[in-house]
């Protein structure tokens, strides 16, 4: 289960140095760590880089332990892929670290930056329809999650889930998804109409990029350090 609602809460409620750093610096940090993972040929520098990211997150007051658990979600997929490879422990260690290190960097970004800020930056590079679609999806996603919770509670209360009855459960879930889709379209249409009345003209939010700030040294320094570790490792 992707816990987007909880991630959104962490991103909006923190006030540590990573929360105060600019979105641009954190996206650069992420790209530096991804570059490190792509170029890594040895697990040791990535392991050191992962520990460094962990320390940075803990120092910045992020929920670092929860982030560790979430980053290992990526390792599951790496292992599934790795099953089809002929390799030994060294290769699996490298593969898992290649998965969890960028995943941790991504979590550092999203746990310390509200989505509207990330989307503002991305939207500056995207065509209008993609930017508008991205925002509308983000808004509708939380409405839909809420509706899904209510739907599941309602269907349980009315005896809609029967253990062992796969056909009945599937039919109810399918109807639920259909109903959610129809209601989500109606709600999104209303939301869009309200935005249009309030002057929406194609741009969902300001797409002005923030400049660099003092706390940017932390994400930029961490990203450069991880990449240098991988490049300089012999």
């Amino acid at each position, binding site marked *: 289960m992707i816990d987007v609602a909880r991630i959104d809460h962490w991103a909006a409620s923190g006030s540590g140095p990573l929360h105060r750093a600019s979105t641009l610096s954190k996206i650069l940090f992420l790209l530096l760590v991804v570059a490190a993972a792509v170029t890594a040929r040895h697990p040791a520098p990535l392991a050191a880089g992962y520990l460094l990211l962990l320390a940075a997150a803990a120092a910045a007051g992020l929920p670092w332990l929860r982030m560790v658990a979430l980053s290992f979600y990526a390792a599951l997929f790496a292992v599934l892929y790795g099953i089809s490879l002929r390799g030994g422990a060294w290769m699996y260690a490298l593969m898992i670290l290649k998965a969890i290190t*960028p995943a941790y960097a*991504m979590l550092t970004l999203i746990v310390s930056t509200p989505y509207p800020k990330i989307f503002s930056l991305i939207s500056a590079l995207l065509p209008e329809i993609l930017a508008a*679609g991205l925002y509308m999806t983000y808004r509708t996603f939380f409405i*839909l999650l809420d509706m899904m919770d209510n739907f599941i509670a309602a269907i349980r209360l009315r005896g809609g889930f029967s253990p062992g009855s796969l056909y009945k459960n599937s039919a109810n879930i*399918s109807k639920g998804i259909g109903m959610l*889709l129809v209601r989500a379209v109606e709600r999104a249409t209303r939301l869009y*109409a309200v935005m249009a009345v309030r002057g929406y003209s194609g741009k969902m939010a300001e797409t002005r990029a923030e400049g660099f700030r003092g706390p940017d040294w932390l994400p930029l320094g961490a990203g450069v350090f991880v990449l240098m570790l991988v490049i300089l490792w012999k």
Partner: protein
Amino acid sequence: MTHMHIPDGILPVWLWVSGFIVMAIALGIGLFRLRSMDMKKKIPLLGAVSAAMLVAMSLEILPIAYHINLSVVAGILLGPALGFVAAFIANLILALVGHGGITVIGLNTILLGSEAVLGHTLFYLFKKILPVFWRAAAATVITLFVTTIMLIGIVAASDLNPEFFTHAAEHGAAFKGQISVSTFAIMALSLGSIGWIVEAAITGAVVRFISQVKPDLLVHVLHGNKAQGGPREGTQ
């Protein structure tokens, strides 16, 4: 099985860069077709369907991280061009929550976008042959089979970068830097086929429900506001 959960740094650079290039070309073509779209109608629908895809993807239905995608539903409701855009948005947001790598956004969008395009095409091809439920279900099974083959093709093409393993000897690892495509294919096709049936049943039921409750959602007109006789991109 057609959404790759492969993290960053696993696939060779040439492959994921090619994925981004093909995705950009496909998105460019899609956006060109959407240039005079009725934004007021389609952006909310795009948001709702993309969000529904994300919610569906967050529900694990098999204990191997298998989830439904609703990509065929997206294709049927949005049409091929907007369906491809929905696939891109869903993949971008998934990558932003650490579900799949950033470098595989291109390849994942191609796979998921192909499901939307192919699903839409088959759904309307079967129009005169099958009732709504079976049309959507058959379109889903065929689409997922084709995109699983595409996925196996991508994995076979990756053949993991040989340089990836250059230090193997130093560390005593007893392996050759080759992927067992047959093992991967057996896994993808056997586990995938269970998923195709589940996804086909859900897609069929969802589309049938929509056809009964709000049939106008199945009639997507991209340029309806431009002119009464304007071009239509597929109707039920």
